[in-house]
């Protein structure tokens, strides 16, 4: 424990980098998810098929391969981003492909009668989406989306593989140096503590997520809650579980 205390500044810097990466991938994944979800919802056949294929391929390739691929291949076409950004890009793309399906399933869970009624009231497509469809889709979207966010936050640990200076990388460096200078590996202590840090971080995200979820589920208290539960389960069963 004293080892962790001794290097607290170094480890804390890594933790800050992890938080930065988490924020970046959360925003990036959401942006890409919205973009891909628009493709999936498109009325034009070609765009729709392209969207589905893209999502399927991105979801089926292991995240580890994705991260390495972005890190090794982008520089070849003159886009060398460095470890931080290439890890963020890869994880955002992966998260976006999974998020797109959550958004699509959420939007589709709202019955077509709602859209037709909105059209009858002369609501435009944007008004319909934001005032009618989204508020009803939110209770279905939020729970799996929060799980996805915790997954991309956990995935930032992959930055260590390509050399981003985040928490896991800081831990690795600390272990290497201590093993060389003092002998005896403190790996179980350092990795154990990192596990705990991530666990606390993800629990906090889930906690905030549960509050947001409760907010959107207010209108369904009592009636309709079971139906929503079932829709959420269906989405979560098909969602990516890894990170």
């Amino acid at each position: 424990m004293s080892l962790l205390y001794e290097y607290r500044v170094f480890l804390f810097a890594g933790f800050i980098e992890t938080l930065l990466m988490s924020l970046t991938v959360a925003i990036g994944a959401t942006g890409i998810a919205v973009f891909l979800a628009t493709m999936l919802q498109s009325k034009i056949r070609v765009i729709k098929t392209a969207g589905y294929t893209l999502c399927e391929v991105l979801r089926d390739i292991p995240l580890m391969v994705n991260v390495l691929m972005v890190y090794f291949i982008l520089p070849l076409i003159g886009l060398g981003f460095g470890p931080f950004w290439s890890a963020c890009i890869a994880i955002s793309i992966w998260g976006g492909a999974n998020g797109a399906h959550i958004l699509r399933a959420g939007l589709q869970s709202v019955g077509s009668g709602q859209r037709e009624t909105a059209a009858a009231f002369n609501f435009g497509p944007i008004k319909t989406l934001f005032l009618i469809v989204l508020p009803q889709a939110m209770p279905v979207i939020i729970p799996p989306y929060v799980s996805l966010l915790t997954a991309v936050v956990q995935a930032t640990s992959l930055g260590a593989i390509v050399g981003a200076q985040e928490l896991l990388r800081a831990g690795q460096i600390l272990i290497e140096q201590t093993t060389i200078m003092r002998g005896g590996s403190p790996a179980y202590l350092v990795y154990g503590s990192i596990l705990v840090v991530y666990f606390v971080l993800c629990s906090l995200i889930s906690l905030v997520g549960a509050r947001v979820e409760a907010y959107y589920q207010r209108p369904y208290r009592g009636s309709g809650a079971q139906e929503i539960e079932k829709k959420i389960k269906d989405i979560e069963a098909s969602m990516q579980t890894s990170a």
Partner: protein
Amino acid sequence: MIDWAYMWEAVPDLINGLGMTLLVSFLAIIFSLLAGAVGCALRVSSVKALNYLIAAYVEFIRGTPYLVQVFFVFYGLPSLGLKLSIFWSGVVALSIWASAFHIESFRAGLTSVSKDIRNASASLGLRAWHHGLFVVFPIAARSALPSTLNTVVSTIKNSAYLQAIGLVELTFVAVDRIAYEFRSIEMFLAICVIYLAVVLVVSALGHRLERRLDRPYVGR
């Protein structure tokens, strides 16, 4: 732009890597399913302490990055007195990770079986184990199947993380060759296609199983 001859040359290495990926994943899938079944039984058992213990295990594994778990098993456990080879570290880490997800899907499957069925079985004079094996299990298995299959497929994909501890599987083979020969586009294209093929085949098999189990419900 793509050097096909080079890719052809790499095929034997890639096949070896794929073999290792499949072997590790296969063992991990078997072990994690077994651990998932046992864990689920403990999770719903009447001993409260065990319920909480398993629930905490599931929450902890799901709330922590898999990569750190792999490092903990491979680098951390030896100093706690458990020294495993790279291969078995990989199998153990993968099984630990997947079992947490299996426990959760099995439990969700069990809770989807309605309570009234128990009374129905009792009134037909079924013994407890008959009830469990012939009534509850088939219903629970159907509803747990989609998420279980998802975890199984993810187990195969997550075996790629084991390249980080030096297991010579598919991703490791590709990265290793890139380090010496700098043909990154060829190697990544090759392993992406292989992973895609494996994942699609396994999911297709899973869907067939799903459809087969759904037969009694067709038309209802």
